[in-house]
């Protein structure tokens, strides 16, 4: 019924066949692309799952034969039956070196990123950014060489001084030169470019309107960064830090080269100046000797702990980012 009283013809004009929707070309391309993208995604998920299954399958028999507490023991004796191995020392060395690296690299990396995006004059910003990226291209083995030959002797006096003035704190008790402390600093340098590059990327995407909003309220440059740039970039910085932490936890060759191994049975120490082995460096050091399945299984069990550790760290980062999500859209 028409409101205006004019009859409205809702029927299509008679005598015409309803036209079919033409099937255009290009459907094949759509299917091919969709199919290959799905395949790629599936492969990645399958790979991660298989890695987990492999680690578990190899580690569980070894752990079952373990005569001591796998997580709590400090022993590592897999050369003769019965097997006695635990990861406490490895966990400590891995976590401590990574924490030192993060404590140094994240603030410095964020500061460098802010310098490049906000403070540096234009002619300097690009070369500075490229130079930092270049740090990421230096191979680990070079960091290892440099760490052993140059950096360890260089930090020696600082370690001695810390040891003699703060030695009463267990963390700074004097021990060795090729220590967790030195490794932490070298790791910090290695992960600095990751933190810097990703932070720089998110900071430079801060919408101009947010920055102007802060400036128009009478914010100084630093206040503008605090109210507009840092909150905007926070999830990105957290992601950057987690990627960097992943690298620090798993870094192998540089740690293996620098860190002095401890004699079996040496007493427990909280000192940062102690030697030791991380998960990765222990496995690398012994890779030539995987001669029995039990022995191999013990090292794979250590690798499993490292896998779980990085997994947990990433999960925590996800949760932190999710919780801020309502405020970033």
């Amino acid at each position, binding site marked *: 019924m028409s409101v205006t009283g004019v009859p409205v013809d809702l029927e299509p004009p008679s005598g015409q066949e309803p036209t079919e929707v033409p099937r255009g070309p290009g459907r094949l391309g759509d299917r091919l692309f969709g199919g290959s993208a799905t395949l790629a995604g599936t492969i990645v998920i399958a790979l991660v799952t298989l890695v987990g299954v492999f680690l578990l399958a190899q580690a569980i028999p070894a752990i079952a034969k373990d005569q001591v507490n796998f997580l709590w023991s400090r022993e590592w004796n897999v050369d003769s039956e019965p097997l006695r191995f635990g990861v406490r020392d490895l966990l400590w060395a891995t976590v401590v070196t990574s924490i030192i690296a993060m404590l140094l690299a994240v603030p410095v990396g964020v500061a460098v990123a802010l310098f490049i995006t906000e403070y540096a004059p234009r002619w300097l910003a690009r070369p500075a950014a490229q130079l930092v990226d270049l740090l990421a291209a230096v191979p680990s083995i070079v960091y290892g060489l440099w760490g052993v030959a140059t950096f360890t002797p260089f930090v020696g006096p600082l370690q001695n001084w810390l040891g003699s003035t703060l030695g009463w704190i267990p963390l700074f008790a004097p021990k060795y030169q090729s220590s967790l402390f030195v490794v932490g600093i070298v790791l910090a340098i290695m992960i600095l470019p990751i933190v810097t590059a990703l932070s720089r990327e998110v900071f430079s995407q801060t919408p101009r309107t947010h920055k102007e909003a802060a400036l128009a*309220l009478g914010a100084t440059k630093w206040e503008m960064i605090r109210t507009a740039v840092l909150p905007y970039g926070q999830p990105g910085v957290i992601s950057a830090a987690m990627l960097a932490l992943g690298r620090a936890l798993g870094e192998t060759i540089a740690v293996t080269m620098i860190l002095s191994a401890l004699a079996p049975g040496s007493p427990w120490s909280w000192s940062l100046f102690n030697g030791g082995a991380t998960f990765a460096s222990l496995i690398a050091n012994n890779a030539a000797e995987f001669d029995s399945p039990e022995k191999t299984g013990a090292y794979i069990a250590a690798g499993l702990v490292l896998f779980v550790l990085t997994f947990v760290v990433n999960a925590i980062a996800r949760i932190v980012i999710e919780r801020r999500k309502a405020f970033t859209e």
Partner: protein
Amino acid sequence: MAKRIDVENLSIFYGSFKAVEDVSMTIEPRSVTAFIGSSGCGKSTVLRTLNRMHEVVPGGRVEGKVLLDGTDLYGSSVDPVGVRRTVGMVFQRPNPFPTMTIYENVAAGLRLNGVKNKKRLDETVERSLRGANLWNEVKDRLDKPGAGLSGGQQQRLCIARAIAVEPQVLLMDEPCSALDPISTLAVEDLITELKPKYTIVIVTHNMQQAARVSDRTAFFNLSAQGKPGNLIEIDDTTKIFNNPTEKATEDYISGRFG
């Protein structure tokens, strides 16, 4: 509280490009002055020199004077940060801080000034939100993100944020261009309510809006593409819209170009 602005022989540059040439005008306190003109004629640029936001753009600089109650904003001893605390600004697109709650958005300016007293913050937030006609809509969700509001509410939130620091002057750069007609009306009503307390300068592309809200209107124009923009005339809004002195103004407001 409102202050008078005298612009004297102001020319504005982006690097070596002269964007606006030789503007002189007086903006009266407790009044609304509208800047109209076609796109690219420099009206927003002039507005942004009134709180030294122009300098935020790399290469931005000015020649001439902008006097706020007789003090040159571009004097050598004047701190741009201080100027921006006195002269507030509302932007074309609503830009609440996305990571902050509604409350924190309004309190942001006070926090920058070092106000920590909870009671004073609460009072100012409520007063500013009431002043921006937003209080009743948001009073139950002050702890929710400001970015979750509608566009019109966001713009009023930005106005609340600007007036929370009690500026002497309020600059508005096309504040309604991203808003629907109802939100536009809300903001226009708000401008009229704020007028007795502030000196308000508004840039608008909408001539009806200029006619509705402003007491005085300034018309800017480009003599040719690539040439700097000029102030053609500034006069009472009724005069500009009914009986302008300049032919160019008449052409523009009667829709013959622009």
